């Protein structure tokens, strides 16, 4: 994570969530989650709602197919999925 604020300066509610995720998963919290939980009123909240609808909502495509599209797109973007 290249912006220190997004790495370390979450508000209390989001910091508690991050701590919980870390404790339950036993791993470092992925950067994408830290990004979504940083100032969620600007980005993360609406992004999560959008992602949930697109990736898990009603669709002609199965969840697996949609995940495959996402993985392929990430590959084109040279971004590890």
């Amino acid at each position, binding site marked *: 994570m*290249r*912006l220190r604020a997004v790495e370390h300066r979450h508000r209390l509610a989001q910091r508690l969530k991050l701590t919980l995720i870390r404790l339950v998963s036993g791993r470092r919290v992925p950067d994408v989650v830290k990004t979504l939980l*940083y*100032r969620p009123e*600007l*980005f993360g909240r*609406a992004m999560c*709602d959008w992602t949930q609808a697109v990736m898990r909502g009603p669709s002609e495509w199965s969840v697996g197919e949609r995940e495959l599209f996402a993985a392929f797109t990430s590959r084109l973007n*040279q*971004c590890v999925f």
Partner: protein
Amino acid sequence: MRDLSGRYAALTQRLVDSVLAAPGHTPSELRRAVLTRAAASLPFSGPHALAPSPSSPPGPLSLRERGNGGEDLPAALVAYLDKVALHAYKVTDEDLATLQRAGNSDDALFELTVSAALGAALGRLERGLAAVRGEEGPR
């Protein structure tokens, strides 16, 4: 954005609105200009290249022209935002460190980075949907 019709229109609009209008460290007009510029950028080259549309040249467009109140952005910041929009994997720690040393706060950089990324995503979505509809270009 131009084409927000379809099943996810309301959610997409809410995402754009929150990124552009949420209180922050940068003016909404600037975030909008960054998003619009990124949406017009054309990513990918090689086998998966998307053909540039003659009606939407990705050429240089000044943020000043896009109505951000006459404010002009430093070249280093514009270069960084273009990098985010076109090939974000090339962003380096040094890119960010340079911008931070120039006085940009983490929150301002966060807002502009998200604006550029969202704009690039919406531009690609729009071109993809246009291709599915059998249109040549994004408009």
